[in-house]
């Protein structure tokens, strides 16, 4: 499976020494991951994200896209390689330090990720839990006023101020994803990792979510990594396209420089299982 045809490398500007470049928010070097004794899901992945950039990762089911994002925040433990998040090597950290470092990255998932029985505003405020003491965070009612205000501003930023007091399970899929983006803002994350955020949305809602993700990259200068399944959407919104095939990066370029055939090749012989 892993052969020598994937020689294409990252763009040369990103090839600085690990962790040294201040212009990179997230840098992944030689990341490898396998589950149990199975085949390598990620076979040495190098990728970097800079501020103000929306990077879209394309790949077939089972190509390792989601695993890459999960390894990047150590929801999964990589087998080899390094993850530099805002200049810190996550592998060397544990406990409180890891929690503090990880706070720089926010994650947006495909499936239900909001706490259903809480309001949109409370869900947004949950992004700030990492900065709150246990005592102040025992119940949403005890959250400080400033945090509520910040959460309200974040909701406003994603255009959902009017939904602040609606319970999360009353929101539509697109609204829920935008609340998740607001949560990332309230978390004050530098990097946002979105794992197929529009997979279950209709085209209109997909556009709204992707526009928002692109805006927070361009306007708020966050680094956004977004795993997508739809090549046309990827081309439309990405600042940079990364293609993954069998756990290896096969291209990493601006969308205009990626040929249709290269993208098609990612989906040939797509395995049935994720």
């Amino acid at each position, binding site marked *: 499976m892993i052969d020598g045809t994937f020689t294409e490398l990252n763009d040369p500007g990103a090839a600085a020494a690990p962790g040294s470049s201040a212009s990179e928010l997230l840098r992944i070097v030689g990341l490898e991951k396998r589950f149990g004794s199975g085949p390598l899901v990620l076979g040495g992945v190098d990728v970097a994200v800079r501020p103000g950039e929306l990077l879209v990762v394309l790949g077939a089911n089972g190509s390792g896209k989601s695993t890459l994002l999960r390894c990047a925040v150590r929801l999964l433990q990589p087998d080899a390689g390094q993850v530099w998040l805002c200049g810190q090597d996550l592998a060397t950290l544990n406990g409180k330090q890891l929690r503090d470092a990880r706070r720089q990255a926010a*994650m947006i998932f495909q499936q239900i990720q909001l706490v259903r029985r809480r309001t949109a505003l409370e869900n947004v405020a949950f992004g700030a839990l990492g900065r709150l003491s246990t005592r102040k965070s025992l119940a949403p009612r005890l959250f400080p006023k400033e945090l509520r205000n910040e959460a309200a501003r974040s909701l406003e930023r994603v255009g959902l101020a009017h939904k602040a007091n609606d319970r999360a399970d009353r929101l539509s899929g697109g609204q829920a994803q935008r609340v998740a983006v607001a949560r990332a803002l309230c*978390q004050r994350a530098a990097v946002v990792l979105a794992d197929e955020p529009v997979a279950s949305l209709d085209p209109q809602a997909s556009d709204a979510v992707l526009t928002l993700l692109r805006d927070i990259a361009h306007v708020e200068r966050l680094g956004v990594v977004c795993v997508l399944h739809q090549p046309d959407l990827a081309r439309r919104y990405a600042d940079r396209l990364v293609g993954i095939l069998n756990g290896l990066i096969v291209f990493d370029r601006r969308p205009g420089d990626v040929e249709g055939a290269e993208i098609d090749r990612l989906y040939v012989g797509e395995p049935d299982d994720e």
Partner: protein
Amino acid sequence: MTSEPLTIGPVATTRRSRGWRIVIRVLIGAGIVALYAQAWIKTEISVSALVTGWHGMLDIIKRSVPPSTDVLGDALRQSVVTFDTALWGATFGVFLSLLLTPFAARNIAPNRFMYEFARVIIGIARSIPDLIFALIFVTAVGLGPFPGVLALTVGTVGTLGKLFAEAIEDMDMGPVDALRVAGASKTQVFLHAVMPGVLPTFVSLVLYRLDYNVRSGLVLGFVGAGGIGFMIFNSMQLFQYQQVFTELLVVLAMVLIVERLSTVLRGRIV
């Protein structure tokens, strides 16, 4: 082309093992019949005993009407004691279960050791019947409803500890992962992602267990743990079937009321 080996493979193995499969099915069938046969013999099931015993039952029923009215007041008071026993047993039990649950759910347990430890405690509480615990506690703290409360506490931990943990293991991990990445501590994740997610399930489990505790508390009375069960036991011993009838009617009313209440509460909260 690629699908060819896929279809040939399974079909071939099916043909080869069809004979074996029939043999295995016959063996399983024979095993089940043997199991039932030995159970029939061991339990001394006897139709003739049922027929002759019928008269005895009719006799008891005849002797229990009309229900005695002079124990009604006592029966009502004692049924309240049984409910109180169930209530405190459930409350203490829920509290202890909630303390154990974060360790007993595999997906959020801090480490393997704590997980196994919590599971062993819950396993012990569950595998020993409430009645045995009641006997032990009656010996330890004396007759009365208090040993019943203790026994039901342990019993509640046994079931709720397990069911709470399973509810958490089955829950959607999306919010948990999202908060974890946001840098939330384990306590914060538990309070804000886990608990709201499982609360409806927990409430309905707790109400079910309260309901169960009322019925179980009744039986615990038979071994001296107070309440209306103890009353029924005494009336039975004295062959006061008219009293027993009254007491059973009170029990029926209590169980129905508690059941109704828990259904209404569940509808409200969930």
